[in-house]
């Protein structure tokens, strides 16, 4: 350890403000990038769920139409 106490670590030989500002903002910037990536993935998952529901709706309608046409075909024959 290059320092004797925590006060000295914070003080950094008089350069504490600069050293901690540099480290703090750098870590914050990278953290924002990581969180943004995680949020993007979450948003994509929500989009995928929406898309799935849409596909299911379309599939259901198609099935109903097929069913209906089958019924009408039966009645005419």
């Amino acid at each position, binding site marked *: *350890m*290059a*320092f004797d106490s925590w006060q000295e*670590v914070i003080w*950094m*030989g*008089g*350069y*504490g403000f*600069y*050293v901690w*500002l*540099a*480290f703090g*903002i*750098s870590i914050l*910037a*990278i953290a*924002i*990038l*990581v969180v*943004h*990536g995680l949020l*993007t*993935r979450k948003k*994509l*998952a929500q*989009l*995928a*769920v929406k*898309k*799935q529901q849409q*596909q*299911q709706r*379309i*599939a259901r309608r*198609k099935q109903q139409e097929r069913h209906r046409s089958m019924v009408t075909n039966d009645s005419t024959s």
Partner: protein
Amino acid sequence: MWKWLHPYAKGEATYRLLGLWQPWLTGLALAFVSVGLVWGLFYAPPDYQQGDSYRIIFIHVPSAMFSMGAYTGMAIAALIALVWQIRTAEWAIAAIAPVGATLTFVALFTGAVWGKPMWGTWWEWDARLTSQLILLFLYIGVLALYYAFNDARTGAKAAAILALVGVINVPIIHFSVYWWNSLHQGATITKFEKPSMPPEMLIPLLISIAGFLFLTAALITQRLRNEILKQELHRPWAMAKLGVEANDGV
């Protein structure tokens, strides 16, 4: 080799490969960065001239190195995208640019905060600083172009051209301290000369540099995987990866 490389032009294969790497890259990044920074901040001796202010170097140098390294990688992706029309390479541009821009910002910011106590100024329009600022603008320009068009492929092509033209800035940044009279000091670590740093400072710096290499790779991997999913969302495999069963209406 081409046969072996070919599947990675497809989104799914690349996504899977990146998925294998991501936990390792993230773990190595966390380990090396924390060891490097803690060592540099608390255990490395103070500099005989700059006192404790020099500890900013443990973030400043690695972030500056990989701000340029990421740009070079992005330019290579741009070349591949333009010549071979490979979509994964186009997406890599969009994945690298925000990571590179953040690293460039970190390098500029830590430089300013280091410059204030050492040079007496936050900013100087000197060759190294100005060319690094241009790097930030290039990254922002590439991103803006990528998303500026309704047709994603047109945007990717425009962004690729800017990325490729802008790569000239990378050697300019690197050699700026030798070509012009600069306030900025020369390289601390060179391949050919003995490093101008004692091992007690050099070892944590090298660890931090390795950590930032893994960090850069991990961040790019995360974003490239997102970009692949976004572009391939209409395909069943991407839907499955996002936790839903794709239903094609059959």
